[in-house]
């Protein structure tokens, strides 16, 4: 502003103005530092503490936490991995594990969608909305054009879902870049807008409601040729479809994008210090838009996997009930925003979700409706304790005093003890 006279309007915000509340750059830096130094012990501690406290909730309401967790574990099908599980147990475990992996695929993508934003200093709580618009696009594309060759149809539906998610998240990125509006609030508002949009589209009299039953608020079915092929288990009993490989491939792309590409470098630079990034010539505002669009693309793709892989249609209830995307936040934070960490955290939460589902949890041991809320509590505690790195690192450092003493306090450049940067 060359000449500011009294009474003139306030200078417009910088083109990529910082919003009033944002993730502290210190947090982003700390998480990255922790990844280098803390390894996988800090996340593991986080999980243990969260499950322990969840167990306290179970115990406080008069249930047995150990048998509850055992039943949840059995419901997740993870015992299939143990070689000593055999006979009918093994068959049941296989079916349960297929369900767990069905959830793990989208969760990987939803976790990456949060993690990439985190690395750029953005907090994408809008996975739910991006997932919903992605699934809306996929169900529309998958149920139209019945004569199209199968693989083109599948890819087209996925691409459209990806584009829809990217657009939806891009709105938040653009608002942050242009007006400095906080993406936490805008992504949450876009979640609710996506929910009501979906309820309108598939609701009674809505434009995308199914043609066959006018009194059922549900979409048309995905045509058979546009469904993702099942490679493990019975296709009629919701076997495991190839979507998990799409998710794993996305994790590889994520790693390359973040660590080996210019765009990823710019995103990380902005996450560390937007001011410094700007002075070094990175267009911060454009980075915000691109990062958010990438995140939305991942979440939208997750929506298409569920629709094309096992749901095959969307009811208005599904749209209002979907909480999967919020788990992406816990997955990303627990996985330290890395590709591998996100995949492992997604497997854990996928197991938790299916272990507590009505279908898999033995109601004689613990009511599934209660257990699903227990999942939410554990999810919240994980996020809470990841944020409190000071606390977890304190425990971590307390647990290894001897090695610290032997190292004499100066143990290499990475530091033996993890320092907390304020």
């Amino acid at each position, binding site marked *: 502003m060359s000449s500011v006279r*009294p009474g003139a309007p306030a200078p417009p915000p910088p083109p990529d103005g910082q919003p*009033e509340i944002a*993730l502290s750059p210190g947090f982003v830096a700390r998480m990255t530092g922790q990844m280098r130094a803390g390894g996988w012990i800090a996340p593991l501690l986080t999980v243990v503490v969260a499950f322990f406290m969840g167990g306290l909730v179970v115990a406080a309401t008069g249930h047995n936490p150990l048998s509850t967790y055992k039943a949840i574990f059995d419901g997740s099908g993870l015992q299939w991995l143990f070689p000593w599980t055999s006979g009918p147990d093994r068959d049941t475990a296989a079916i349960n594990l297929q369900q767990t992996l069905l959830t793990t695929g989208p969760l990987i993508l939803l976790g990456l969608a949060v993690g990439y934003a985190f690395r750029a200093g953005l907090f994408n709580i809008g996975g739910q909305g991006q997932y919903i618009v992605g699934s809306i696009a996929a169900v529309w594309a998958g149920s139209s054009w019945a004569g199209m060759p199968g693989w083109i149809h599948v890819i087209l539906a996925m691409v459209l879902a990806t584009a829809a998610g990217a657009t939806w998240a891009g709105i938040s990125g653009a608002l942050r870049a242009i007006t400095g*509006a*906080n993406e936490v609030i805008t992504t949450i508002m876009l979640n609710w807008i996506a929910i*009501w949009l979906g309820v309108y589209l598939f609701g009674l009299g809505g434009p995308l409601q199914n043609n066959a039953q006018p009194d059922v608020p549900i979409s048309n079915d995905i045509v058979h040729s546009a469904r993702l092929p099942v490679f493990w288990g019975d296709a009629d009993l919701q076997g495991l479809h190839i979507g998990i490989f799409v998710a794993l491939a996305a994790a590889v792309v994520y790693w390359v994008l973040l660590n080996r590409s210019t765009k990823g470098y710019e995103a990380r630079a902005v996450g560390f210090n937007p001011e410094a990034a700007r002075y070094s010539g990175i267009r911060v505002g454009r980075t915000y838009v691109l990062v958010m669009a990438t995140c939305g693309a991942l979440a939208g793709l997750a929506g298409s996997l569920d629709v094309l892989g096992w749901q095959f249609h969307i009811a208005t209830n599904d749209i209002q009930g979907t909480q999967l995307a919020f788990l992406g936040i816990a997955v990303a934070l627990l996985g330290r925003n890395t590709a591998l960490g996100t995949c492992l955290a997604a497997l854990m939460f996928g197991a938790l979700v299916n272990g507590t589902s009505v279908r898999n949890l033995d109601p004689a041991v613990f009511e599934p409706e*209660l257990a699903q809320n227990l999942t939410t509590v554990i999810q*919240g505690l994980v*996020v809470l304790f990841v944020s409190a*790195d000071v606390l977890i690192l304190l425990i971590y450092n307390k647990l290894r005093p001897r090695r610290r003493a032997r190292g004499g306090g100066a143990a290499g450049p990475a530091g033996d003890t993890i320092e907390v940067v304020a």
Partner: protein
Amino acid sequence: MSTAAITRNLRAPDGGPSSGLTRERALGWGGIALGILAFLMTLPPFEVRSIGPSVVLAVLAAGLGVAAIVGGERRLGGGAIAAAIVGVLGAYGATRSGTSHLEVVVSWGALTAAMLRYATPLTFAALGGLVSERAGVVNIALEGMMLMGAFFAAWGADKTGTWVGGILIGVLAGMALALVHAIFAVSLRSDQIVVGTGLNFVALGVTGYMYVNSYGAQGTPDNLPSVPEVNLPTDSLGFIGQAISQLNLLVWGSLLAVVLVWLLVFRTRTGLRLRSVGENPRAAETVGIGVYRTRYAAVVASGGLAALGGAFLSIGFVHSFSQNMTAGRGFIALAALIAGRWRPGGVLAATLLFGFSSALAQRLPEFSPSLATLFQALPYVLTLIAVAGVVGRSTPPAADGVPYQREGN
């Protein structure tokens, strides 16, 4: 100190150099008023049935807007042009629709009463956010604190048999969650946004768990004690009189809370200390103000206020509890806090606007039942626009969201 922080500190807290009424600002506001008038005259009770006068007013409004922009007042000028466009579109819609529909939808007395009801939970929560953020702690967990208030007020009212007991237990539950927020955000210096997000999930899980555990499939009992309505003999005093003749006690409580929070934060020594901790904690500590203690108190108070909003939802408004019943209201309250520029009066204006949009969303289906669900998105769209539109002018407390570390720690 980063350059952003320096520029931010240079700006005066209230929009800085642009405050005060200049000729350009008057032009801008005049244009906005004319644009609104263009719409208003086609609605009951005036019901001008032709579009002509509205078009004339809208053109005038746009002209004033252009004049304001030429004079350098871009924001208000843009606002005037937007008001002109919205005004003429609204007037077109209103003149085309039947008067009977119009009179059902735009029944000012009922609309105002509904606006106040929908605004109440938001006002309580936004005031909570104000207290916390004025002390320098961002409270994303308002949503969770409201939810705690909503469930535990219903649970407490059921167990104690009185609504007073319900409110007490609800507020205590909100404060308990807020205490956890304070421990993490203040003592452990966690990232406040991540802590808040985690606590929102914890609140969602805990209230859902307790709800299923206590009430199962039946839901909360039908005879839940509820906060009483206040009946006033004001029915003859125009639409405002009709609107306020029967409102819930907590609606009045929220308006009182606006005044009380304003007095506390801006007119007392305690408030001055609170704000100094939010603006410059180091300086506050130097003169002997306990930064941690102040922030703890502010966050816990904020939890209590947000929980009051939640309590109103469950035992003052809906008379039952359902899982995740706050439905993003905590975040709308945060947006209202930003749009209201961290001041009680501004916050009230913003929550009334969001409340009005919710009230309208309940009545618009009269025009088109198939679009009814789409109208439900209105408050969220409006919040999006508000956050995007006002942020440039809005300056938070300087140390908002910055964890404070005592020297020598």
